């Protein structure tokens, strides 16, 4: 990765704000890295490059946070394992929060609200098609 004008956290968010979801890959050990770092969490290298993941993943665990309607209502919080081998916290949208199941295949989507991007997921079938 060439010198850039910001750290990994700001670079990640800047791409997200433009609707692009990027993760890192280590040019020395070949492993993918998430969340974005300055140093590879697997081998300690600083040779991290940005790559575009397939966006496909599987729900590793899930919980429904119970909130009163005036506090935003119930919301899903899931941990998703991307096919690239990294995990992130996110939420599955488009179905009831308590209908999200461990093992559900999901596909990433960047939701941009007030100019700020956030990775969320939609359910998909095994081949990655959005249902």
């Amino acid at each position, binding site marked *: 990765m060439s010198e850039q004008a910001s750290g990994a*956290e700001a670079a990640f*968010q800047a791409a997200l704000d433009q609707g692009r979801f990027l993760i890192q890959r280590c040019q020395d050990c070949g492993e993918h890295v998430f*969340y974005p770092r300055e140093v590879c969490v697997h081998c300690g290298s600083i040779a991290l490059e940005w790559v575009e993941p397939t966006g496909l993943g599987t729900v*590793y*665990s*899930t*919980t*429904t*946070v*119970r909130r009163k309607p005036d506090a*935003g209502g119930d*919301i899903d*919080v899931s*941990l998703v394992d991307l096919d690239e081998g990294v*995990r*992130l*916290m*996110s*939420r599955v949208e488009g179905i009831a929060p*308590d209908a999200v199941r*461990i*093992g559900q295949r999901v596909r990433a989507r960047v939701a941009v609200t007030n100019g700020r991007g*956030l990775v969320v997921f939609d359910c998909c079938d095994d081949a990655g098609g959005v249902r």
Partner: protein
Amino acid sequence: MSGNGDSMRGRFAIVGVGTFGCGLAPGYTDMELLARAAHAAVSEAGLTMRDVDGISTASASATMWSMPVIEYLGLRPRYVDGTMIGGSSFVAHLLPAMRALESGQCEAVLVCYGSAQRSAQVGRREIVASRRYLDPQPYEYPYEPMLPLSAYALAAARHMHEFGTTRRHLAEVAVAARRWAQLNPDAFMRDPLTIDEVLAARMVSDPLSVRDCCLVTDGGGAYVLTRAERARDLVSDPVYVLGNGTAIWNRQISEMDDLTLTAASASGREAYRMAGLGANDIDVCELYDAFTINTLLFLEDLGFCAKGEAGAFVEQGGIAPGGRLPVNTNGGGLSWGHPGMYGIFALIEAVRQLRGECGARQVRGARCALVHGNGGTLSSQSTAILGTAETL
């Protein structure tokens, strides 16, 4: 129970413990609760504050907490440990204090904590809000998890998925804690509690209901550690430290490799190695039960049963009074109380059990106790094994 552990085993002892204001303590600050607990622990050891030349302490809000504590108590310590790794801190403070005592750097270490969390004017809501800025987790906060609760809920959901653990198993943990609390006049929640009541309780972050969560109470706790030779001169019943180990693998739940396997597996291994003991040698167990899933995970990771089998282990009152293993004999964080960071209170209960002071909840003939502290969101783990003189 003769051990073949390492050279630290049994060479240091807890000579005094103290608690103050546990439950409700309106009108007291964190520092005042700490100071009264510290005074009680130092007095019980037959010492005065002037004899304290080592200090270990931590606060959930003040980053430089050891300094105001030293100032408030009027200490001039030669040894200071302000390590803050959440609720396990006061268990993890043991080994560095033992090293300092061993080297001659100091003679008496005071480990102390206080929290007016329940009664304080600045509530948990404000602390959680300020932490977003002071200690950001930018890859979790945008998804609005209810931390720490949702992190433990995610672990519980995964444990249920992999091993067939049920909400009833989780409820067994809450009911066992309540049954111990009913034997402890100092416990905060002592009303009868049934499995069905836990199952019917308000859901907070699935699969954990409000009855799967620890209490929010006030309280101060403290203990004093010295070399064993000195301990025997000070008190008739020192409680010896046989082993201690600490392990941290991650901070955020999203960074934990396997939500069903905690770093307690590593901290426990280290503590057992030092003690030259195993799970079969433990008479009484104090496991940091911030949530019901914690107890199941730690029973497995500390070797009391195989991975995935803790649900069956706790069935039919397995860890309740009269069960197969006495666990959280004071009622635990779930029913005794939980002043923000509970680890020191788990350790104090273990000491009192080994001294035989626990009245109706006393585990008869308890000689060897395991204390396990947890911090963050299953992030930091520290295990200690304590024993009476018979275990040396």
